Every structure is written in structure tokens, then in C-alpha cells.
């Protein structure tokens, strides 16, 4: 249809509508005229006859509207009228409208963000075809997602319930193209990876099972779309090119489609490489060792197979494994879980956190609705005159309610749009956020249709929720009462419901404020605790010498050169080398069994402790700022040719030997049977998480356990940026082909504090939202109570009431509700503190400081919210009031 004819059609319908209106008017007038004709014929004057005919006809406007509705044509039109009227009414009270819209924008914005997070991390499946049939395979009671390659081959070949099982792991590698080396993140995957996931290449081809012919047989590489775009400028002649991974040649065979980000949700790899060639591409596990658990498995269930059937199938293979490999696979069992968050390792906390966040966000929206319901009810009472007038003029109650609902919807949708826009901004920020510096986390929170639908639905539901509050009030309204008394008698209408809403709202806010106090305390405590090292004034240089081809004995020599070079620089206090950083993510799996010297059977049940092991150089303790309690640090003589020695921490010493003093010079055994002598004891520290209890740790000379992947800790008082530039230059001078990362230790710790920070930020935001809602809610309620009773207050003041009594009359009920709601919120917050303690490290609501904080802030909020109404009540001038009447 052309635009012209569409316009003509529209004009015609409009014309028809007004034509129908004119016809209706004419018909009704004709009726009155004919009646008047008859009356006139009976002897009345024409004027009197017409008057009587009009009276007999009844409410002309009402019947006209009813006819309109009955004819069915009026809906769109009257909706338009409602909309225009609602706009006019809302424009007339801009402060009410602004507060209402902002309140909703906050509520809906918070919900959009929380929902997007939940959607991204829980609801949305992996972006591959038929993702619902994919499951992660976990091992044992403790649900360990890591499996060994030989076990994987048995599971893959001996199960019947799967269309295929893929194996993958994440690792780092040095990639050099045209002589330039950079660090890159990749997946090492089984040959069937792309075939089982049913992904099609964007460019070139993928590798397949048929490409695997044993270790290092498949030097192929599939680029991710974004890496191809960013690193290779989308060059379509890339297929067939050779690049070097850790100095080994690999051929680029294809590019993955843009939508494919691998099988973990929080991370997009730069490329994929076959697991069998992993040894050359930064892989650290051993393909042939059944005890080397380092790959994650995802299986695609055959159609019609249930999870239970598949688990039974896996466990029958488990029985086979246990019988044939009792050493490695004793008591092995398997279970299935949702893929994408390293099985349940990340899945469980992430699910708990996002569900908790979502519930709190919903609570906020509920509080916002209660708030708005109150405002609407108060406004409805103020508008009773207008409504009474409309009723008296013949408007139907349904029409008036529809009008109120239209206003509610208008506010709600505007608030929803604003909230969604704010939420989108926050989401964009989350999307580009790099919370953990050593690992390219990417939260896939880009909003999809579900986010928009959730925002729309929450807007509509809220509109219904708070729009319905004044309905009962409106239905009870009798025009003649209002006209007689001048205003609606508020003490009888709707008060009970409003009280409940206010208490509910204050309760919810109390919970939110309690939650945020718990989070603040938790973060404060975790920041204040002793790390066992001093991150201030320290720079870290992370390298993996194997990326530049330093293998075997070449690595310690190169490390020696690095340390010597740095130590020779001016202004450097100490330089140390370590193979693992405390509080680094990799430390989560740093568990080593240690045994008493007297133990002969070195099996897990006989272990004296599970210790974190760190291999460090001579000056590490000084560089890291770890205090030595007694004994000595390592020397250059503690190398592979001398007896094994260790520095242990205080917990280790007391657990194995009883005390720090007794530990000196004593021996213990490692799982490989080697005897180690304790030469020193260091202070306790944090090794895996900020929140952990003190745990045993031991340090060994790095020369006795050489490794190519290390961190250099450089302690210096020099300005970090200037020092970093100098270190950078020295490193490039040492070996231009060596990829490295350089950052301050404090920046590195951001990763460790990430979880606490996320919890802290989100809970404090919610707390602030809650506080704002509480203030507006109490303020609205209190100022409305005062304005309703202004006359009464004036009379009381005229009769000599004291200020205290006036305040009590004016604000007593509001304050009582506030106190009641605060106590309820606090009690619920304390009861739910187990949940809070779970998401906020070391936080508990039973902390006296938290309790005090919550009580004080609720009182402060009450004071702020009632200040203006109280001032207004006290400044009532009885004379002026009397004159107004």
C-alpha cells in the first residue's frame, strides 16, 4: 500500500468515526425533541417541555458514552482520551511524576541488570546447536571437573549414552607471527570437539578426530572470530598460514563463527588447538598419565537418553576403570551437571549469587511498588473531588479506574524505559569490564529479547500492582459525601492497606540495608587481614620461558640472568622469583600431601597435612615482604645437588611438629617419598582465597624444583610506572622474543578481591536503592499525614498544644510504622544472615557493628524523611488556616 493511500484510509476512518459520533448525537437529540413534541402537545410550553424531556432522558453524556462503548468503536478513541488526560494530569504535578518515574526506573533498572546476569550465567545455554543435550562430566563425590586423558579415552569409547564426549582445557601460549611474540589464551581440545558440538567453520575447515595420530601429530589451529578480526585484521587469506606457538610451527586451518565462544561462558579463547599437540602449545598435563587430571569433559546425550541412564552408563565404565587401574582410579564415580561454568566449581557459587541478587532486585521492585501504591493512594484521596465531579457528571466507575490505570501504566512504562536504558549502560560497562587482570574474563551480558521482555513485564506487573492500590478507595467513593465534606475522609478509606504497604516497604529496605552493611563489613575485614606478604611497592613480571624456547637447563640460567639484571638496577630493594603467586587463581588447585618423617605408607589417609607449595628463589621472602619467624632463607647452594630443604609457615610447623621452635631442623616427607629438612619458619598468609582459615604452606628452593613459568617480584620505592618502563626495556633487551606481562602486585590482587568486590558493589547499590525508597516512602506518607490533618493541628496549636504533642499527633503513626518495619527488616536480615555470609565473605549480621549501623541508619533515614513534614506541622499558623476555610 502506498503511503498516500494509507493516509487517505486513515483520514477516512477518522472521518467515519466523527460521522458516527454526529449520527449518535443526532439520534439522541431527535429522541428528546420528539418527547418534547409530545409533551408540548399535552399543553406545556416549548421551553418547559424541552427541559422536562432532557430530565426524563437522564444523563445525556453518560448514555452517549455508553452507546459509544456498546457500538464497540469507542475503545481506541477513549484510550486516546485517557492517555491525553493522563499526560495532562501528570504534567500538572511534576514532582510526583518525577519521583514516581525515578522510583520505578531504579527498581526496573536493578531488575534488568540482575536478570541479564542471571540470563547470561544461568538461563542462557551455550551458543551451539541443541545445547540442552550437553552436560559436563564430573568426577567423584567432590564433583571435580578435571579428568585425565586416558580416562577420557575410556569414557569416550566405552559409553553408549552419548553422541560424543569432548575434552578441553584452557591454557596460555606464546604466539609469534613474523617474529613478534605475544601471549595468547587458547583451548586445547579433543579432535571431535567441533563435530560433537556441531559448529560449522566460518572460514577454512576445522580439525577432526581423523587428524589425530598420537602425541604432537596435529599442529593445527582454529582462530576465534574476534581474534581473527583483531589480531589478523580479518585477513581471509589466513588459512594455511604457519604461526609459531612456543616456537613450534602450527598451521591455521580455519576460523570459528562469530557466535562460537567455546564451552565456557565467561571466556572467549583466541584459538583452538588439538589436545594431542598440547605439549607444544602450552599444555601442562600428561596425555599418558591416568593420574594427571587436567581436562574437562562435555558430553552430548543421545536423543531419548535420560541423565540417570547416562550416569549409570558412565559409572559402569567407572567400575571397569577402578578394577583395571586401582592405583589411579579407585572408587571413581561420575555425575553430570550443566556445562559452561567448569561444571559445579564455578556453577554453584555463581548460581547462588545471581539468584540471591535477582531476589534482592525483586525485593527492590516490590518496595518500589509499595512506595508508588502509597503515593497513588494518597493522590487518589487528594483527587477525590475531581473524581466525585466526574462521577456526578455521569462518568462510569470503570472509565475512571481505566483512567487511573492509564496513568499508572504511563508512569510505569516511562520508568521502565529509563530503567532499561540505565541498565543497558551498566551492562555495557560489565561487558567490557576486565575484573581479573591475569585472565581475560568476559561476561556475556549483552541484552537479548529476554532482557527486554523481562523489563516490559516487570513494568506492566508493577503498574498493575501499584495502580490497583487506590481502586478500592475509588470504588467506595460516593460523590455526594465528597461534595458535602469537601474532601475524602481519609482515616476510614484505604488506610489499613497503606499501613501494610509502608511496613512492607520499610521491612524490605531494612533487609537491603542489613545486607549491604554485612557486605561492607565483610570486605573491610578481608582487606584488613594479614596476607602474609606486602603488595604495596611491588611489581610483578610474569613470564613463561618455554614460550620463548627455554627448556630444561636453559630456564634456570635465563631466570638467573633476569634476577641479576633487575637487581643491578638502581633503587631496587629486593628481587625474588616464585613459581606461583599467593591468591592467584591457579593456587586453588595447589594441594600437596605431606607426611611425618615416621610415616612409611605414603597414602592420602596417612597424610599429616595438605599444604600449599611455592617454589621460590633466595630473595623471595624479602621481595614479597614475608616475615621469617626463625631460621634462614634459601641460598644459591640449595640446588638440585644438595639435600632438600624447606621453609614452612607457622600453621605447618605447629601442625606437624607442635610449635615453631620444635620445627627447626626436623624432617618431613613429600608424596614422592623425598625427605625434606625444615630450615626456617615464615609467618602465615593467605594462599587461595582472602576468606580462608590459616592453612599449612611450605616454600622450597626453586633451584631444587626448576620450572619455566614464573613470576619475578620486584620490590622498590621507585615510582611504579617509571620502574615498569625501565623493567620493560631491560626485558626486551634480554630477549625480544619473550612474551611477558608486567603489573603492580596491587593490580594483580584485584582478581583475588574480585568476588568480594562484586558482592560489595552490588549489595551496596541495593542498600542505597533501599534507603532511597525508604526515604521517599516515609516522606510521602508523613507529609501526606500532615497535610490531611493540617486543620486539626491548627486547632490543637490554637488550643495551646505543645510542640511535642503536635509532632506526636502528626507523625506518631508514621514513626511507629517505621520502627515496626525496621525491626522486622533487621530480624529478617539476621535470620537470613547465613545466606548473606555465604555471598559476603566473613560477613555476618550478628556483628554488633552491623547491628548498630543498621539501627543508626534506619533512624537517620527516618529523621531525614520526616524532617520536612515535621517542620511543616510545627509551623502551622492557626489564624491562616481559619482564614482559608
Amino acid at each position, binding site marked *: 500500500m502506498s503511503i498516500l493511500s494509507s493516509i487517505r484510509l486513515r483520514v477516512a476512518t477518522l472521518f467515519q468515526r466523527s460521522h458516527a459520533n454526529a*449520527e449518535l448525537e*443526532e*439520534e*439522541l437529540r*431527535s*429522541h428528546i*425533541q*420528539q*418527547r418534547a*413534541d409530545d409533551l408540548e402537545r399535552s399543553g406545556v410550553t416549548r421551553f418547559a417541555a424541552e427541559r422536562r424531556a432532557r430530565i*426524563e*432522558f*437522564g*444523563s*445525556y453524556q*453518560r*448514555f452517549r458514552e*455508553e*452507546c459509544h*462503548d*456498546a*457500538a*464497540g468503536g469507542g475503545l481506541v478513541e477513549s484510550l486516546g482520551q485517557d492517555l491525553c488526560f493522563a499526560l495532562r494530569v501528570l504534567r500538572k504535578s511534576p514532582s510526583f511524576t518525577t519521583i514516581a518515574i525515578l522510583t520505578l526506573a531504579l527498581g526496573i533498572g536493578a531488575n534488568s541488570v540482575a536478570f541479564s546476569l542471571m540470563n547470561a550465567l544461568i538461563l542462557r545455554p551455550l551458543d551451539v546447536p541443541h545445547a540442552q543435550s550437553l552436560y559436563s562430566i564430573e568426577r567423584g563425590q567432590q564433583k571435580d571437573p578435571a579428568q585425565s586423558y586416558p580416562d577420557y579415552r575410556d569414557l569416550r569409547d566405552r559409553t553408549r549414552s552419548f553422541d560424543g564426549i569432548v575434552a578441553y582445557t584452557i591454557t596460555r601460549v606464546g604466539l609469534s607471527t613474523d617474529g613478534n611474540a605475544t601471549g595468547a589464551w587458547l583451548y586445547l581440545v579433543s579432535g571431535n570437539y567441533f563435530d560433537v558440538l556441531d559448529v560449522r567453520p566460518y572460514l577454512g575447515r576445522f580439525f577432526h578426530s581423523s587428524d589425530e595420530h598420537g602425541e604432537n601429530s596435529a599442529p593445527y589451529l582454529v582462530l576465534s572470530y574476534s581474534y581473527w578480526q583483531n589480531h589478523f585484521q580479518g585477513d581471509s587469506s589466513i588459512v594455511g598460514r604457519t604461526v609459531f606457538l612456543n616456537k613450534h610451527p602450527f598451521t591455521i586451518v580455519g576460523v570459528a563463527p562469530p557466535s562460537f565462544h567455546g564451552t565456557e561462558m565467561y571466556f572467549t579463547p583466541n584459538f583452538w588447538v588439538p589436545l594431542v599437540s598440547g605439549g607444544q602449545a602450552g599444555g601442562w598435563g600428561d596425555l599418558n598419565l591416568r593420574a594427571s587430571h587436567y581436562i574437562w569433559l562435555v558430553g552430548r546425550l543421545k536423543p531419548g537418553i535420560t541423565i540417570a541412564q547416562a550416569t549409570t552408563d558412565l559409572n559402569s565404565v567407572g567400575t571397569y576403570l577402578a578394577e583395571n587401574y586401582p592405583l589411579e582410579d579407585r572408587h571413581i564415580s561420575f555425575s553430570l551437571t550443566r556445562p559452561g561454568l567448569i561444571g559445579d566449581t564455578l556453577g554453584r557459587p555463581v548460581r547462588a549469587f545471581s539468584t540471591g541478587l535477582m531476589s534482592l532486585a525483586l525485593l527492590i521492585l516490590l518496595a518500589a511498588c509499595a512506595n508508588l501504591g502509597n503515593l497513588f493512594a494518597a493522590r487518589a484521596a487528594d483527587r477525590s473531588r475531581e473524581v466525585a465531579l466526574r462521577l456526578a457528571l455521569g462518568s462510569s466507575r470503570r472509565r475512571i479506574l481505566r483512567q487511573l490505570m492509564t496513568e499508572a501504566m504511563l508512569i510505569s512504562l516511562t520508568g521502565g524505559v529509563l530503567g532499561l536504558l540505565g541498565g543497558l549502560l551498566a551492562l555495557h560497562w560489565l561487558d567490557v569490564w576486565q575484573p581479573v587482570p591475569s585472565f581475560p574474563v568476559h561476561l556475556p551480558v549483552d541484552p537479548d529479547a529476554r532482557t527486554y521482555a523481562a523489563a516490559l513485564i516487570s513494568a506492566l506487573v508493577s503498574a498493575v500492582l501499584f495502580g490497583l492500590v487506590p481502586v478500592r478507595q475509588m470504588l467506595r467513593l460516593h460523590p455526594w459525601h465528597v461534595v458535602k465534606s469537601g474532601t475524602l475522609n481519609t482515616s476510614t478509606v484505604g488506610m489499613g492497606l497503606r499501613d501494610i504497604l509502608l511496613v512492607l516497604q520499610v521491612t524490605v529496605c531494612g533487609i537491603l540495608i542489613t545486607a549491604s552493611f554485612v557486605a561492607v563489613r565483610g570486605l573491610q575485614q578481608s582487606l584488613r587481614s594479614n596476607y602474609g606478604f606486602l603488595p604495596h611497592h611491588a611489581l610483578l613480571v610474569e613470564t613463561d620461558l618455554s614460550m620463548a624456547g627455554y627448556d630444561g637447563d636453559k630456564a634456570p640460567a635465563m631466570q638467573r640472568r633476569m634476577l641479576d639484571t633487575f637487581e643491578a638496577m638502581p633503587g631496587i630493594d629486593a628481587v625474588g622469583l616464585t613459581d606461583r603467586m599467593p591468591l592467584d587463581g591457579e593456587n586453588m588447585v595447589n594441594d600437596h600431601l605431606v607426611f611425618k618423617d615416621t610415616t612409611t605408607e605414603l597414602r592420602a589417609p596417612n597424610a599429616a597435612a595438605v599444604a600449599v607449595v611455592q617454589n621460590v628463589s633466595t630473595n623471595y621472602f624479602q621481595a614479597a615482604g614475608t616475615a621469617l619467624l626463625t631460621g634462614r632463607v634459601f641460598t644459591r647452594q640449595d640446588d638440585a645437588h644438595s639435600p632438600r630443604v624447606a621453609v614452612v609457615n607457622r600453621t605447618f610447623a605447629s601442625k606437624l611438629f607442635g610449635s615453631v621452635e620444635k620445627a627447626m631442623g626436623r624432617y618431613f616427607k613429600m608424596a614422592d617419598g623425598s625427605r625434606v629438612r625444615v630450615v626456617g619458619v615464615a609467618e602465615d598468609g593467605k594462599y587461595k582465597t582472602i576468606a580462608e582459615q590459616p592453612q599449612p604452606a611450605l616454600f622450597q628452593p626453586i633451584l631444587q624444583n626448576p620450572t619455566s613459568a614464573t613470576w619475578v617480584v620486584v620490590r622498590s620505592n621507585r615510582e611504579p610506572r617509571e620502574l615498569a618502563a625501565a623493567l620493560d626495556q631491560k626485558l626486551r633487551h634480554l630477549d625480544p622474543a619473550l612474551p611477558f606481562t608486567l603489573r603492580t602486585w596491587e593490580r594483580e590482587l584485584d582478581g583475588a578481591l574480585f568476588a568480594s568486590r562484586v558482592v560489595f558493589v552490588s549489595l551496596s547499590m541495593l542498600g542505597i536503592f533501599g534507603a532511597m525508597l525508604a526515604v521517599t516512602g516515609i516522606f510521602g506518607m508523613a507529609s501526606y499525614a500532615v497535610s490531611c490533618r493540617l486543620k486539626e493541628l491548627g486547632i490543637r496549636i490554637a488550643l495551646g498544644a505543645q510542640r511535642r504533642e503536635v509532632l506526636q499527633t502528626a507523625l506518631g503513626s508514621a514513626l511507629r510504622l517505621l520502627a515496626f518495619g525496621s525491626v522486622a527488616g533487621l530480624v529478617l536480615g539476621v535470620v537470613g544472615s547465613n545466606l548473606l555470609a555465604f555471598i559476603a565473605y566473613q560477613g555476618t549480621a550478628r556483628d554488633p557493628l552491623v547491628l548498630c549501623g543498621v539501627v543508626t541508619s534506619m533512624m537517620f533515614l527516618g529523621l531525614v524523611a520526616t524532617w520536612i513534614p515535621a517542620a511543616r506541622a510545627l509551623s502551622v499558623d492557626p489564624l491562616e488556616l481559619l482564614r482559608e476555610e
Partner: protein
Amino acid sequence: MGDQAQLLPGTLDLLILRAVSLGPLHGYGILLRIGQISGNSLLIEQGALYPGLFRLVRQGLLKTSWGTSENNRRAKFYALTATGRRRLREETESWNRLVAAIGAALSTQPEEV
């Protein structure tokens, strides 16, 4: 006017159909005809007739045309459609059954139970 009966809900439509079944009428005419056939014993607010008329037209039970009234005024005339005629027959039957049933129930004497 005091002895006029209030209309039961829903019965106005039936009365309109009945009035129009005797020949096409305009709105005011329908009101007069109802008064005439009911012996002026029913209280109908005049304006309330029209929403009913529009409803029946929308349901396809009545059709309309413009003409001139006996007072020489332009007026809209209503007439039954075929559906309207069928509906009137059905509604009349069910009404009669209802009246008979209620009547029988109300006229039952204590000794008959």
C-alpha cells in the same frame, strides 16, 4: 409512577426485540411501544434504551436506516434482522419457561409439599 416495576437485568434487550418485531421503529417509538405493550407498568430510564440498541445492532440482531418520524423529525429506524427474529423466538421460549418455573415455585401451597 410509584407502582411501576424495575426492569430485571437483561430483559430490556428482550423488550426491544419484541417492540421492533411488530414493525420498524425509531428509538422514541420503541420506548412508546414498550410502554403500550406492557401497559405502562415498567420503569425505563429513557436514555438507557440507546446503549441497548447499539449493542443489539452490533450483535447483528437489529438493522438501522434513517427516515422521518410521524412528527416530521429525522430519526433512525430499527428493524429486526433474521438473526434477531430467531433470537427473539429463543429468548421468548426460555423466558416463558423461567416464568412458569418461578411462578409454579412461588404459588406452591404449604400442603402441596
